[in-house]
Structures are given as C-alpha cells and as structure tokens.
C-alpha cells in the first residue's frame, strides 16, 4: 500500500522523531511511505482564527500536493480533523471543492489508520516499562475516543496506567490563542499540569504536537519532571524500530 505522510508543520519543526516513528511503523506494517516535500501546513491556525481566505488557500494547496495519493496519514488528529471536517466546507462551491472532498476522504490519523486499515493490535504490541499517564487532545474527538486511547494504553493489563482526574481537560494551547492571550493560556496550562503531576507518573502520552509544545514548555518552566511522547513513538520503541528515548 502506498501512503503519503503528512507530517504537519509543528511535528516537522519540533518533533521529527514522531515523524520518524510514524514512517517506520507504516513501513513495518507493509506500506511504501512517500513524503511530498512541497507540503507545509494545513492551515488550522488560520481556520480557527477565522482567517478563512488564508485557510482555504492553504487547504487548496495541500489538496494539490497530495492529489496523487489515495492514503494520506498524519500523526496529528487535529490536522486530520481540519482536513476531513472543515476542508470540504471551506472550499465548497469553488473549483477546488472536489479536490477538498477527495483529500478529506483520503486523510487519516496514524493510530486509527494502523488499527482500521492495517489491522494492527496496538494495545497487544505496546510495551510500557514505567508508569504512564496521558492527555486526551480536544481535537482527537473525530478520530478516536477517550475509551479508544485508554484501551490502547491499558490493553489486557499489566501496565501501570494512571488516569488523570479529567483526561480530556484542555491544555490551553488553542492555536493563536496561546500567544494572543498568554496569561489565560497559561492559567489553563497550570490546571492541566497539576492534574498530570497528581498522577505520580512522569511519562505522559500525548499524540498532539501542539499540546506537547504547550505542556512540555510549561512543565519545564515550573521545573516539573514530566516527559512527553506520542503513542506512535512508544509503539515504535516497543517494536524495536526506534531506540528507546527517555
């Protein structure tokens, strides 16, 4: 199966290891992975801020960059949601409408792609050697549920998974919100970090680069011993595809 990787701007810039893990996993389960180098950003920050002209432009461009691929896989559920849910409505009535619908149909988030298209038993293959907690990202809702994520982590037992009091509590990133209302964003962040710290675990599974940027940055500012990993990284490590990293 040929798969195009949509790595996303934040993962590309700050967390390339997540891109590597995604690539290695796809290859491990039999896919040929392509990386169209013209890709940049899906336009989510512009869309959420109401800058729909700019968002439409970037979406149109993205549909063009990925037009040759029947499967487009991304490590970011929020970007997948933007493309799938908002892309078609943004470009409805324009010449790019069909391309947007096509892109929406073809784009999938990595974990659900592994589970549903490649029939990977994520929870069966996952090895976790230390207590772990997790963040359920707000925009993962369209891709997988909190129960899905918990199921992948907990599996059939034997793993020390600490559930925060409110796993879906927003980290406070919110796109441009994080820099437009920094004190407010930080107030939300503090509530979130308090809950993670309260679990006693140091490793936090977080599948969203934006949330990781926010939480890791906040944890460091507060001197907290929290580390963040995408579940794709954990899985790749479990399969021996990636050298374990602290």
């Amino acid at each position, binding site marked *: 199966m040929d798969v195009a990787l949509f*790595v996303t*701007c934040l993962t*590309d*810039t*700050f*967390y*390339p*290891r997540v*891109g*590597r893990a995604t*690539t290695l996993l796809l290859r491990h389960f039999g896919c*040929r992975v392509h*990386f169209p*180098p013209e890709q*940049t*950003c899906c*336009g989510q*920050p*512009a869309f*959420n*801020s*109401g*800058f*729909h002209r*700019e*968002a439409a*432009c*970037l979406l149109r*461009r993205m549909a063009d960059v990925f037009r040759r691929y029947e499967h487009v896989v991304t490590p970011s559920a929020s970007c997948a949601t933007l493309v799938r849910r908002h892309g078609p409505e943004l470009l409805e009535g324009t010449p790019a409408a069909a391309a947007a619908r096509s892109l929406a149909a073809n784009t999938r988030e990595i974990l659900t792609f592994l589970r549903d298209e490649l029939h990977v038993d994520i929870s069966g293959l996952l090895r976790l050697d230390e207590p772990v907690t997790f963040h359920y990202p*707000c*925009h993962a809702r369209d891709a997988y549920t909190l129960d899905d994520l918990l199921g992948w982590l907990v599996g059939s037992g034997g793993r020390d998974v600490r559930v925060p009091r*409110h796993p879906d*509590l*927003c980290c*406070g*990133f*919110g*796109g*441009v*919100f*994080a*820099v*437009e*209302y*920094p*004190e*407010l*964003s*930080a*107030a*939300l*962040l503090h*509530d979130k970090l308090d809950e993670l710290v309260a679990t006693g675990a140091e490793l936090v599974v977080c599948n969203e680069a934006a949330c990781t*940027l*926010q939480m*890791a*940055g*906040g944890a*460091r*500012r507060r001197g907290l011993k929290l580390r963040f990993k995408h579940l794709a990284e954990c899985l790749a490590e479990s399969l021996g595809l990636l050298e374990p990293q602290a």
Partner: protein
Amino acid sequence: MSRHSLRARLARAVADDRVLQAVHLATWRKVEARAASFAQLPHAEELRRRAAQIRRHTLENLPRYLEQFAARVQAAGGQVHVACGAAAACRIICDLAVRRGLKLAVKSKSMTTEEVHLNAALEAAGLRVVETDLGEFIVQIDHDRPSHIITPIIHKDRRQVGTALARALGCRYTEDPAELTRLVRQHLRDVFRRCDLGITGANFGIAETGTLCLVTNEGNGRMTVTRPRVHVALLGIEKIIPRLIDLPVFLKLLARSSTGQPMGSYTTLVTGPRRPGEHDGPDELHVVLLDNGRSRILSGPAPEVLHCVRCGACLNACPVYRNIGGHAYESVYPGPIGSVLSPLLYGPQYEELPRLSSLCGACASACPVQIDLPALLVRLRARSRERQPLGKRLLLSGWAWLMRHPRLYALSQKLLRELLPDDGAGWARQVVGPLANWTSQRDLPRPAPGSFRELWKQELSDET
C-alpha cells in the same frame, strides 16, 4: 461596559485567587455531577438529538408557533404583548404595573429581565422590586452583578454573603449558610405576603397549550406565580416549543445539565390566570414576548445559538470560564454561550469575546441541545476578521504566505533554530518579537537539530 478593557479585566481575573478557587470548586463539582447524572439517563444521546431537532424545527417555523402560543394563552384568559426591544419590554411592564397601582414586585430569577434591565425601569416608575432567588437577592442587596446564569453568587464566599445580609437587613452577622438562608427566607416570606406584582421569565412556552414552564429549586418561582394578583412573564421568542409532549424531552436534560439532579425541585406549568373556583393564583397573567435581536440572530451566522435552554452546563465545563469567572465577560450572558450571544445581541463591544477560547469543545460536549459552540465561535471570528488586532492579522497573513513557499518555509525552520536563544539544554526561556508572548509563560524548545524534512532527505527516503 466598564472603562477597563477586556485585557485589563482578564489580567485582574486571572490573578484573583479567592474567586478562582471558588469558581474552580463549584464548576468541577457541577461537571462531575452532570457526568454522573447523564451516565444514569437511558437514551441520553437520543434525547439530546431530539431536543436539538425540536429546537431547529420550531425556529424554522417560529411565526406559526408564536401565533399559536399567543392564541392559546389568550384562550386561557391571559394577555399577550410583543416587545421588539428592551425599551418596549420595560415600557409595557411598567405601564401595566402603574395603571393597576401595583407597588411591590417580587421577581423569580430571569436572565431575560436582566437583559432588558427591567428592575431599574420598574424602580424608576415608583415600584419596589425584590429579587427572591437567594443568589439574586444577595446580588441585589450588595449592588453586585451575577457571575453565572444559574448560580449567581458563585464568586462570593459565605463571609461576603454574611456581611451583605447583616448590612442590608440589620440582622446579627452570621456566615453559616443554613442560618443565612433562614434569615433570607424569613425576610422574603414577609415580602411574599404583601406583594402585588410577580415577575418571572419562563424556561419554555408551549405553543399547543399556551403554557409557561418554570423550573426552579427554591420555591420562589411558585410563590411568585401564586401570591401576587398580577403575574408578568417575560419570554424570549426562542423559548417556544410546539407541544406539551415535547416538554419532557427538555426536562429530562435540563436539571441534569445544570446541577446533576434528575429534576429540579419544582417544575411549574402555568396556563392562564387563576380559574373560577380556584383558591389562589393571580387574577391577571401577562405574557410579554421579547425579540430584542433574536429575529436578527435567526437570519445571521449563528442561529443555532437560539437553541440554548440556559442550563449553564457550558459555563461549568469551560476551562476559560473556570479561570476568569463570569464578571470578566461584563455581560448578562457570560461563558461560552455568552461569547456567542453577547456580540450577536448587543454588538461590537463584545466582539472580542469569541476569541477568549481555546476551542476545546468541552462546552459542546456538555450542551444538552448539541449546540456546536466551537463552530459558532469560529464563525464569529471570521465575521470580525478585519477588526481583529493588526499584529495578529499580519502574523497570520505572513504565516499563510510563508506556508505557500516550501523552500522559504524550510529556510525559516533553520533560521528559527539558529536564532532562538538556547539556555544550554535545548530550550529558549525568553525571546523578543512575535514569540515573546510564548516565552512569557512557558519555555520553548529549540527546533530539533534536524527537521523532519531534513531527516527524510538524509536518511529515511533511501529505505523502501
């Protein structure tokens, strides 16, 4: 609006530890109570869908249902007035109160009456107006403003309530909630005995039967529709539902969403004034239908906001509300629903409110009638795009431009890596320029030594 900008109010709110602690406690309690309550409700999702459908259908056919409602109210002996705006509503109600020589008005909690500033108008017309919901009563005697649409004094602690009561009633200071409640009950009982005008809102108006539905917990709503000889109900036009059998759909969702109870203590259905042979109830019932911008909202970008049943669940769920409290919004309607409703009802002075959100969607998940609040917030942001701050517009236009040029984008990744200061461990603590707002609150990791696209070119693309 106060003379303090929204930013100043936000800064003050985020720093007010006492209020924030109270709001955190109260909202989390409600969130958890709501979740537990919904877990016990069979067919909850189907009920939410059905409620949303009823609302949508009704708004699409509003003129017909308004006519039907008015006809049934009149058939039951009530009188119907239509107020296009706040001023008209106040004029209608003051006129009828003055013409009948009414002197003492008791009010059951109604956001709609706050929206039109009815109390001030009635007082100017010479009536004494007494709020009877405990929280609203405290707000009134303390010259404060409510900060939540269901629990008005969520921001106050018992000491503040005790102080306000002692000052207003001249009673001995106490801060015991049971004793405070008893003092208020005693005081208001006397008012209920002497009042001649009762003013309520209504949670719903049933077109099929001309019935008003009031949901309360304290009993002041029942007192207000029982004791005085004239009852006035002010009702937003969006509150109409078609049939009696539609009401339980909403009732099963409302109290669970508000407080986690299966039902409020009192759900009161009022159809017309007292009937011949009945022993109590008002001689006259006046229903005032209020537009005040709702018909404009119907044909605007966010008509779904009119589905709202005023349960307050979105306020309780919202991490922003939890961290700034209700006063920072400076609107009768705060929180997520208020961030959409306030600019649509009142205009540009609330245009910034939709941006006070991380779009996390906790509100939409909590909403009993499935209003997609994040989508409405984005729509309002789009509508006010040209009036958003210049710096932000430049940033986003610049970003979008850069993202159309992949080679420049790749270059900018390298530049960021070079230019970001490093504290020695791969993090930037303080930067100037557009990212200063990031590092004012949290650290920023320096971009990894190789971006993914560099990694791909160097290593990954060779393997097939």
